[in-house]
């Protein structure tokens, strides 16, 4: 076995020891195992690479932090509770359509930003209380939000992983609308109705009404929804009228929405809410920093190349197994990273099949990485918005649907040329 294999082994072992024996946080454990890996590979203490790695996920960290603050604020103003009340009152007697609409609603921010976390932390957080009041248990609600957010990230018009793969092979982002809709929408509806329908097919609305929060709209009027309205407007404007003055970036958009929340509903202490939100987001921020360092050292030491070259030279059947296993596992680091590192070689290994369909299928599988620990961005935040302390309960509940998603993605790749006749106009 080459040196890279042993370096990988040392990195994984030291990571496990740091987490389980040392009881260090995951982010710190990742950083420690990276330092040990670099030392073993003969790179000494590569300070520049360690620091450079920490910056790899700066943008997602800023988005997550600002989104968490926004979510906490609209919870405090009463806007979240009010939307939950309205959904229950107006949609409780049409369960299938209610779940389908809620699915699309959760998917929406993911569809226009290409980020599953944007979906979980905005629309996911908005519908969570309603779904739980309707009788869907906490874990199942978290699963619906996490899975819908993943499909939102894959659905058109914006699928960033496809763009990343396209960037690696000079494939323009053209003709992906129908393939991506085919990859995401049927699965999204089937998944959420499978998880939630049995709980909402007959609800006792009178009983639920008693537990609903006091109506805030009577006290504050429609200004209660001002921050959410501004968020939707900014998200749409930045994409419908792209330009220098509309390219604000998600963190700034969330910051503006947070400021607009003053006097929109119940009063809140901005300092306390921000502190709480950042405290909640801190573990994930730490993991993202640690992952950045870990990948940088994997690349520097050749471990990344070793893993890729061994994976893509698998024979045909095992290549598909490799796709199903490695894309989500590497996606646990980042689904964008998985698309960048593995998506391009897999696409090249599958040349001869319709590249558009293959790339769509690959990103569908890569999106599952957002469920996988240790980062599990969609899953962990879904657990947070429903108040579930054990994320693994949500992961366990999502696993069958994740498996179906992976098989669906493989099916798309296998039948790429047939599907291309119908889906590429």
């Amino acid at each position, binding site marked *: 076995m*080459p040196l*890279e294999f042993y370096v990988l082994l040392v990195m994984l072992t030291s990571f496990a020891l740091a987490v389980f024996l040392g009881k260090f946080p995951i982010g710190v454990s990742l950083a420690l195992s990276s330092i040990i890996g670099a030392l073993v*590979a003969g*790179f000494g203490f590569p*300070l*520049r*690479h*360690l*620091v*450079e*790695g920490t*910056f*790899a996920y700066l*943008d997602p960290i*800023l988005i997550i932090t600002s989104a968490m603050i926004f979510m906490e604020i609209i919870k405090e103003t009463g806007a979240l509770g009010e939307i939950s009340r309205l959904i229950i009152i107006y949609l409780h007697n049409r369960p299938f359509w209610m779940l389908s609409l809620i699915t699309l609603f959760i998917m929406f921010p993911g569809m226009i*930003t*290409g*980020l599953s976390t944007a979906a979980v932390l905005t629309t996911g957080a908005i519908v969570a209380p309603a779904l739980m009041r309707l009788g869907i248990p906490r874990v199942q609600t978290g699963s619906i939000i996490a899975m819908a957010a993943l499909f939102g990230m894959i659905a058109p018009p*914006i699928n*960033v992983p496809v*763009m*990343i793969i*396209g*960037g690696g*092979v*000079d494939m*323009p*982002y*053209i003709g992906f609308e129908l393939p991506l809709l085919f990859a995401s929408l049927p699965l999204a509806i089937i998944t959420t109705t499978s998880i939630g329908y049995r709980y909402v097919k007959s609800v006792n609305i009178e009983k639920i009404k008693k537990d609903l929060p006091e109506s805030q709209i009577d006290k504050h009027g429609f200004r209660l929804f001002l921050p959410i309205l501004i968020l939707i407007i900014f998200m749409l404007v*930045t*994409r419908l009228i*792209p330009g*220098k003055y509309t*390219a604000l*970036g*998600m*963190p700034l958009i969330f910051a503006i929405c947070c400021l607009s929340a003053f006097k929109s509903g119940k009063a809140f202490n901005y300092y306390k809410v921000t502190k709480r939100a950042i405290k909640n987001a801190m573990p994930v921020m730490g993991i993202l920093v640690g992952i*950045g360092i870990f*990948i*940088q*050292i994997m*690349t*520097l*030491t*050749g471990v990344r*190349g*070793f893993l*890729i*070259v061994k994976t*893509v*030279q698998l024979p045909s059947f095992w290549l598909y197994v490799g796709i199903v296993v490695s894309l989500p596992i590497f996606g646990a680091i980042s689904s964008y*990273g998985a698309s960048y*590192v*593995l998506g*391009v*070689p897999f696409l*090249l*290994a599958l*040349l001869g099949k319709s590249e558009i369909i293959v790339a769509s299928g690959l990103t569908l599988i890569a999106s599952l990485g957002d469920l996988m620990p240790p980062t599990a961005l969609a899953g962990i935040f879904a657990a947070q918005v429903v108040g579930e302390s054990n994320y693994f309960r949500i992961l366990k509940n999502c696993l069958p649907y994740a498996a179906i998603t992976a098989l669906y993605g493989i099916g798309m790749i296998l039948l790429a040329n047939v599907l291309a006749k119908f889906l590429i106009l």
Partner: protein
Amino acid sequence: MNHHKSLAIFILLLSLILSYFSARSFLSMRENEKYYPSESNTKIKPLSDYFEGIKNTRGDTPVYLFENEQPGGTILILGGTHPDEPASNITTVCLMENLKISSGRVIIIPRANNSGFTHSDPQEGNPQRFYFKTKSGERWFRYGSRSTNPIDQWPDPEVYRHYPSGQKLSGAETRNLNRAYPGRPDGSLTEKITYAIMQLIKDEAVDLAIDIHEASPEYPVVNAIVTHPLAFDLTGEVVLYLQMEDFEFNLEQSPENFRGLSHREWGDHLQIPAILMETACAMHGRYHGSKNADKAITGLDRFYIEADKHELLSVPYPENGIPLKERVGRHLKTIQKILEIWNNYNPEKSIVVENIPDFFEMQEKGVGAFLVSGE
């Protein structure tokens, strides 16, 4: 003071110390390598002379003009569009430090994306410099990033919409110089740089333009000449002659539906024959092993040898790798051939350049032998 506070202060101090040392390393990226242009060099102008909008930014970059009193045509050669493709910048440096002009003009921009030379890509583990031995000592060159420094242009949008086509690419491509042509005066820094290059081509009445690149050995367009339709006859003949001399090249036409590329937009907007050249760089792809400054020179990577055995690459990857001297030599050979064929068909606009380093001599002596020894 309780235990937690002491620990917090310790971590804070440790962070400050590490920040100090790493900041020194990152700031060292702003130091430029030195060039020693040949006697044919008549002017060095900042790119901002052609578009003021990039003045006093890190997008501004030196433009080297090599001229002769004997009139002729003008060729523009771009290196460093992607500063992590070392053969691109080094080819232009080898040209600048050796060429003699008998007629016409040669304009060279060795650091087309100057901002991209001032940082390195996170997650790529690239070295910051690489070194050549020259006759009297060592010279270093910068290994930069594919994209404009985020310090100069940030944040990236989630989706990059190319101007003016509206083509959508991933957000990070917004800092890719070779996706930003034709650029615009009020756009991002990257778009301003491409706009300035477009203005230069207009103002200097450039007749022919070349953009030098490298790609990973698994990339489908590698060891290739990508040509705008206006240059198709010229490059077709160039490839034919090169193949007769046992240089394998693919001739690719510039894709019509992929916008923002230098060759496509130069040709479409300014009606000049435009060419992009690619060689295979093992530091670039997904299969590479560990990275260091030596590998930038030797181009030798055992995982690429393994990938080649499993037919995962677009070009043959020999046991001794694809060294920088071979990649630079190929680029220089191609430029030489392009000029020869150009001069045959355009005698009134001929660009006669002598003393371009010979491919075979470079394989024998190495790149360092063709670089000025420096101070």
